[in-house]
């Protein structure tokens, strides 16, 4: 699983490309990969996960309950959008990805394809 630096540009003028890169943890075990991404402020319906061929795209729009008359005085999170792109490797089964969003943390489980899972081969003594 390697990270793509070149992010494909979308030709939608209303949606600017600038986005925050959410921090992630990626852990691999024998049966697959688990990815955790911090996307605070993104409700379930504003989160978009795309898998196209071997590319995984995580996108989310922030939805904060901001009073209309508010004037910002300090901002460490300055863009209303998260986006991060990963390249999946061949042995991962992109059709069986499961995703769970809880308290602003996205947990993705990408299992390995059956043939790529580790097997123990019994040695028979003949």
């Amino acid at each position: 699983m390697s990270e793509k630096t070149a992010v494909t540009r979308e030709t939608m003028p209303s949606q600017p490309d600038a986005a925050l890169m959410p921090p992630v943890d990626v852990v691999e075990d024998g049966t697959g990969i688990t990815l955790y991404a911090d996307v605070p402020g993104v409700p379930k319906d504003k989160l978009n996960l795309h898998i196209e061929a071997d590319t995984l795209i995580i996108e989310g729009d922030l939805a904060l309950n901001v009073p209309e008359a508010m004037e910002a005085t300090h901002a460490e999170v300055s863009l209303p959008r998260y986006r991060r792109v990963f390249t999946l490797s061949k042995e991962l089964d992109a059709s069986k990805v499961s995703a769970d969003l809880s308290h602003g943390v996205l947990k993705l489980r990408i299992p390995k394809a059956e043939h790529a899972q580790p097997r123990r081969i019994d040695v028979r003594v003949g």
Partner: protein
Amino acid sequence: MYGALFPRDMFAELDRLQREMQQSFDISPSIRGFGRGGFPALNAGGTPQSVEIYAFAPGLDPATLEVHLDRGVLTMSGERKSDMPNGDEKTTVHIKERFAGRFRRVLSLPDDADPNGVSAQYRDGVLHISVKRHESAQPRRIDVQ
């Protein structure tokens, strides 16, 4: 410029740019990491009636979040558990960027903040604290007689 989440004036934008430049060129950051930021990231703003604070603290149990207000100083603290596997499993950690451990952030509220009018809500990993301003401090129109 692009659509900002917290639209501010140009000077604030320049300030942010300068800070980010400094961060990316600084080869010897502070021993406690970057001066600004940390966990949770904070956004703050105000309306004539209230002060609004947003702490981006995903993955917490709301019951373990501590929010204190003492003499105009607001403290947020808590602990974020690591999702990392224990050492005994056959796992490989490829990327580890997310914060884990205890955290604490402190900020001072403006003088007109009302300590009795604080509300805190945790939603989608964002802690939203709203502090009302004293009514006596709110802008009023004075009739000329």
